[in-house]
C-alpha cells in the first residue's frame, strides 16, 4: 500500500482527505503544518503528499522547497490542495516542484483524477 502524507492545519480537511484517500487504498499520515510534515519526511518519505498552502509555522510552499532539497526528496508526488486558486499561485507551485494542483473545494472525483494524472493510481 502506498502512503500519503496529508498536510493541512484544518482537522476537518484532514479527515475528509483521509476518507477519500483510504478509499483509494492509501495509508494515511497526517501533519498540521510544514514543520511537522518536514519532520515526517525526514523519518520516512511517503509516495504522495497532499499539501495545503496556508498553514502556521511553515506554509506549504516553503515546505515543498525544503522537501525537494532532502536526499530522495524529489521522489514524493506532491499535489497542492488549497484555496489559492489564481494563476500566479499555481505557477509558483509548479515552479517549486509540485506535480499537480487541486483548488478547494474538492471532492473524491477530483482527488482521484489528480492522483491518476501523476501516476499514483
Amino acid at each position, binding site marked *: 500500500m502506498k502512503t500519503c502524507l496529508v498536510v493541512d492545519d484544518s482537522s476537518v480537511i484532514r479527515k475528509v482527505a483521509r476518507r477519500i484517500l483510504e478509499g483509494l487504498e492509501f495509508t494515511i499520515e497526517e501533519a498540521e503544518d510544514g514543520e511537522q510534515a518536514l519532520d515526517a519526511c525526514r523519518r520516512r518519505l511517503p509516495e504522495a503528499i497532499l499539501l495545503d498552502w496556508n498553514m502556521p509555522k511553515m506554509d506549504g510552499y516553503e515546505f515543498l522547497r525544503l522537501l525537494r532539497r532532502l536526499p530522495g526528496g524529489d521522489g514524493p508526488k506532491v499535489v497542492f490542495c488549497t484555496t489559492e486558486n*489564481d*494563476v500566479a499561485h499555481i505557477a509558483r507551485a509548479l515552479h517549486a516542484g509540485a506535480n499537480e*494542483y487541486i483548488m478547494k473545494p474538492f471532492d473524491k472525483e477530483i482527488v482521484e*483524477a*489528480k492522483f491518476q*494524472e501523476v501516476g499514483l493510481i
Partner: protein
Amino acid sequence: MTPDDFDFLRKMLRERSGLVLAAEKQYLAESRLLPVARKYNIASLGDLVQQLRVMPNSPLAVATVEAMTTNETFFFRDKLPYDHFRDTILPALVAAHDRDKRIRIWCAAASTGQEPYSLALIIRELAQKEPALAAYRFDILATDLSGDVLERARSGIYSQFEVQRGLPIQLLLKYFSQVGETWQIAPEIRAMVQFRTLNLLNDFSPLGRFDVVFCRNVLIYFDQPTKIQVLNRIARQIAEDGYLALGAAETVVGLTDAFRPLTEKRGLYVPNPAARDLEPLAMAGGARRGM
C-alpha cells in the same frame, strides 16, 4: 404525470432522439422536466405533456428532449481513447496524409465541448514538439443534439470543478485564462473546433468524410436497431484508413460488420474492408432495419 403521460413521453423521446427511457425511470423524467415546466410557466408535468401532445414541434418539445439527454463529460475522459488518438491514430493519419495534409475529425456527441477541446489540446501540444505537424490542417467538427450545451461549448468557459476533472494542471495554466470564478480556453484552441447541432437519427452525408470519429457514451442510450443504424451510417462517412472511437461500455461487436475492433486497442475500431465490398446492400439493410 400519469402512466399514459409517461408512455407518451418515452415514445416521443425515442422517435425524436433515439433515447430509450426505461419504464422505471419516471423519477428521472420528473426531476429533469420540472425545471423545463418552470421555465415555460407550466403548472404541472401533466400540463407539460398535454402541451407536447398538442404542439409536438414547439420549442417546448425541443427543450424537453434536450433536458432528457445526459451531458456528463469531462476533459480527457477515460484517458485511454486519448492515448490511442495521440499514439496510434495521429501518427498513422499524419503519414497517410502527407500529400493533402488535411485531417478531419468528428466528435459526434460533443456535449459541452471537453472531448473536442481535449483532442485539440493533444494536437497543439504535439505540434509544438513536432514542427512538421504545423503544416497540417486539422478540422474538428463537434456536434450534439442540444443547442444549449453547444452554446456553452462554443464559449469555452468552464467552472473550477470542470477544469479539475481530467485536465492536467500544466494544460490549465498554458491554455486557459481565469475569468472570475471560471476558466476560459484559449481562442486558438476554440478556433480549432466547429460546433454544429445534429441529431444522430438524421442524415450524416452533408458532413462529408472523416478520418476519425469519436462517438462515445451516446450509443448506450439507444436501442439495438438504432445503434446498428447509427454505426452503419457513420461507416459511410469514414475514410477507408479511418478510425472510430467508442465509449468504454460500447462496441460494434454483434451489431455491425462495418467496423472491426483493433487488437489491443480497447474502444478503437477501423472500417472493415470485407464489409465495404458488400456495400451498399448490407449496410443499407442495416440502416433500414433501424428506421
